């Protein structure tokens, strides 16, 4: 689908020649996303439902050539891509879209099937040019950032000032603003710094109709200090456990919460090869433990004792399968050693990172941690003392993920069945269910054999909550593997629902219901007090023209 010339010219006049394109190959760079390989032409019903015709769209000559088979990463091609530089430009673009009945989808770093256009004839708003760190406020501990500031650079700047942020598991290459406003925000450091749902203060937001809403104190001309009020908090509209993934307009600035960082201002490393990257010096005031236990129950007991006593900076866990596949440089090396490595890793274990602000605090926390391990039968896994492993783990946990890419390297892609947020009692049961179900597909040879133990997860808020997902790897260009993954998503998430665990990833539901032309919320909603009714009303109220891509949020009509 193409934009009619007058619309394109109008958009061009907003951003200039250089910052807009409708060249097919250029647009394909936005159509392409991992995860799109899971869908084939037979799965287009949802996108078709989301599409609304416009007098300002016309068919492209070769639209029929653009439908990709399962196993191909080409998703839906946008009608144009546009790169604004300022909030004012974003606003003008959004208003233009509303005027001409064109839909838009914003992304920042844009990684994943939720980033690209969800239906035909959509404009991709690429926020790359909005990439400034506007302020780092050390007193009130926040950073004001634009969409294209990524976790790695934000962290580099804040660590220098003795502050840190939650660098999400997906990696330091991801947009901080997008995680906080529009997506999820699970990271290794949620334990002490919370899920990103709560890591925001003031927000500047271009609503789907083009009006600018400034949340909290910002709207009242009182700076960035608060994202709530006056009165009810509109953060409640902005997101829940997940954000709207592009379905509620465009977020242009936020104040992201920062937290005390007791470690060093920089953490120099050597050797760019990830298999050999070493921390030059393990920081003072920090400690690392890898305790393992006889049973899940003992492990859980230790975890929650740590949480109640507020011991630790990060408490996270990784399945043996994921660990084993994560070690080893090349795919061949990993393949040759994965079974042995996995067997040598303990089954019931977690990793505890301690970062303190003084030697006394460190001494206390270490002593307390060791006592808890002693009481729960936890033994420290010796491998954590080897410099390479210690370094790798420390870097992963202090500085956030750059290792996630290993799951892409091995087989081309991963997806995360069984992702859920739970609490103390539900986590272990859900973990066991995941292992059993995933192994069924492993046995069929359709997903990478991680022994069903491909999970990673993190405790939030000192153990009040926990999140977990399975990094199930699959061969991304194999249609059969893609189909198996969808089946697995439906199977495991379905069983979790049936067993009354917390429902998982709303976006999974979209992937499995989409081919049936259904919005995932219309499946899940009736199981959860019909929340979809309210969410749909919010969508209609704030996006009367359904200009902002509804596909990863909610379609305005019931399906």
């Amino acid at each position: 689908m193409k934009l009619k010339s007058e619309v394109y010219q109008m958009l061009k006049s907003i951003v200039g020649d250089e910052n807009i394109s409708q060249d097919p190959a250029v647009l394909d760079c936005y159509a392409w996303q991992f995860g799109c390989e899971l869908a084939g032409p037979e799965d287009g019903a949802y996108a078709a439902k989301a599409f609304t015709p416009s007098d300002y769209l016309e068919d492209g000559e070769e639209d029929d050539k653009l439908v990709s088979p399962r196993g191909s990463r080409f998703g839906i091609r946008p009608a144009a891509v546009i790169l604004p530089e300022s909030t004012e430009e974003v606003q003008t673009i959004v208003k233009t879209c509303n005027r001409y009945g064109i839909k838009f989808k914003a992304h920042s770093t844009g990684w994943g099937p939720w980033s690209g256009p969800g239906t035909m004839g959509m404009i991709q708003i690429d926020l790359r040019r909005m990439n400034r760190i506007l302020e780092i406020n050390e007193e009130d501990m926040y950073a004001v950032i634009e969409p294209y500031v990524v976790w790695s650079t934000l962290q580099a700047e804040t660590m220098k000032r003795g502050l840190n942020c939650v660098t999400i598991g997906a990696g330091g290459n991801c947009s901080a603003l997008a995680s906080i406003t529009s997506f999820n925000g699970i990271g290794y450091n949620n334990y002490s710094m919370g899920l990103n749902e709560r890591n925001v203060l003031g927000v500047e937001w271009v609503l789907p109709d083009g009006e600018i809403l400034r949340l909290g104190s910002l709207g009242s001309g009182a700076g960035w200090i608060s994202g709530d009020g006056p009165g009810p908090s509109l953060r409640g509209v902005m997101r829940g456990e997940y954000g709207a993934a592009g379905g509620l307009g465009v977020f242009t600035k936020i104040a992201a919460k920062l937290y005390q960082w007791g470690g060093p201002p920089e953490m120099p490393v050597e050797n760019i090869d990830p298999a050999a990257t070493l921390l030059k010096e393990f920081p003072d005031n920090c400690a690392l433990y890898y305790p393992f236990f006889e049973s899940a129950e003992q492990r859980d007991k230790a975890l929650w004792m740590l949480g109640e006593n507020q011991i630790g900076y990060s408490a996270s866990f990784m399945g043996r399968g994921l660990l084993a596949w994560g070690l080893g440089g090349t795919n061949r090396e990993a393949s040759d050693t994965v079974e042995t490595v996995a067997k040598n890793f303990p089954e019931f274990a977690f990793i505890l990172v301690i970062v303190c602000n003084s030697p006394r605090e460190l001494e206390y926390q270490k002593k307390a941690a060791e006592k808890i391990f002693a009481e729960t039968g936890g033994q420290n896994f010796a491998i954590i003392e080897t410099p390479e492993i210690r370094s790798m783990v420390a870097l992963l946990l202090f500085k956030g993920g750059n290792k996630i890419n290993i799951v892409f390297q091995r087989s081309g892609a991963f997806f995360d069945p069984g992702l859920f947020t739970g609490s103390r009692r539900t986590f272990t049961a859900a973990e066991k269910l995941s292992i059993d179900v995933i192994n069924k597909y492993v046995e069929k040879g359709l997903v990478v054999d991680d022994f069903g133990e491909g999970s990673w997860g993190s405790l939030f808020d000192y153990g009040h909550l926990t999140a977990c997902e399975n990094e199930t790897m699959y061969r991304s260009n194999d249609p059969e593997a893609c189909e198996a993954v969808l089946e697995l998503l439906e199977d495991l998430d379905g069983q979790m629902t049936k067993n009354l665990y917390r429902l998982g990833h709303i976006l999974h539901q979209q992937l499995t219901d989409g081919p049936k032309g259904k919005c995932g919320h219309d499946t899940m909603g009736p199981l959860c007090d019909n929340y979809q009714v309210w969410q749909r009303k919010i969508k209609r109220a704030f996006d009367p023209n359904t200009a902002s891509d509804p596909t990863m949020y909610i379609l305005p009509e019931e399906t």
Partner: protein
Amino acid sequence: MALADYEFEMNFCSRCSHCKWIPLLFIKTHRFANVCPAIERYNLHAYSGSGRVIAAHSIYQGRSEITDELLDIIYRCQLDGACNVMCHLSNEILEPLDIMRELRTQAVEEGKLLPEHTIAIDSLRKEDNVLGEKKADRGNWAEGLDVKDINQEQAEVFFHAGCRYSYNQDLQDIVKAGVNLLRQAGVDIGIAGKEEACCGGRAFDIGYRGEMEKYADDFISRIKASGATTLVTSCSDCYSTFKHLYPMIDKKLDIEILHITEYLDQLIKEGKIELKKEVPLRVTYHDPCHLGRLGEEYEPWSGEWKTVHGGVIISDPQKPVHKGLGGVYEPPRDILKSIPGLELLEMERNREFSWCCGAGGGVLEAFEDFAQWTALERIEEARSTGAQALVTACPWCERNFKDTLAENGNTIKIFDVVELVQEATG
């Protein structure tokens, strides 16, 4: 070679955008975290390594074709290899740089040519250089040097000046100094003078694959005839062509290949060159792409891809993964550190993830504005270290830095490593 040869690989970009950043764990500031000049300047994803792979895939699948707009994007890229290294740190399947070159070759084959490149290729075909100069003038730089003519007599070291040093008069003191330093250290050195020809690397980079093949063949026979055991060059572009590109087209030179900094470093460490005189200067060193990450020896691979363990993709035999680790990084630094009075400061983007000077890949020829923009970025980074001078080891880098400074204000000095060595020998 064609895009079809990468049909399998092109499936495996996950669009992680690592190709846009230096290795994440090495990031020190927001300001200097980016590694790709093209995406940094132009912002559309198509300008990144990932985008170029996707665009190539799109064209290969017949979803699009090379339009004027895309052609511009294809060539606004220095092929500096940073995206390739960053990708290879966590993706052993994809070959962004190879695919980007294939796309250029396809553009040329389709007759989609940039006029500026056509001029360079015409010059190459007629005069054996890409600079529009006369072949007859090529050896002029060596006048008065009294160096062996390797076309006439054999020598242990075959010294290759390269087009830029041969013809840019304001840079010739550098190449002359290099030759003199080697001779003073007792090295038996010969040059081809006006018989020297281009290495062909630039032609290869801009899509004229066949041209480089001709020059490679020429080199192979010259080297054989010379009896030399070592090929030394002062030009990083040529160095990369010899070590990285010739093996890629199965024309590996059967000779030890050294950049002059490698050789000087050896000689200094052996005591054959003494650095006695103080050079009180704060400098920072710019790793030329072609000496660093693209100076790594290329190991060709032909094998097959297999699936094991339910989906893991392995290469059989194991495909070498080029991460730039084998490039020349320490010898220039060791040289600088051994110069008395000199203080070496590091830029944030260095070694395998050095920021490009802006000149390579045909950009200097066709998009001077972009070449200068890229250079200005690097100059700003150099200045941020507090250095008084930016030192490098490649005439293309020097050319671009100097020209950029001339037009934008001379805010920092530019030196070649060789110049400082010469200064320090007194």
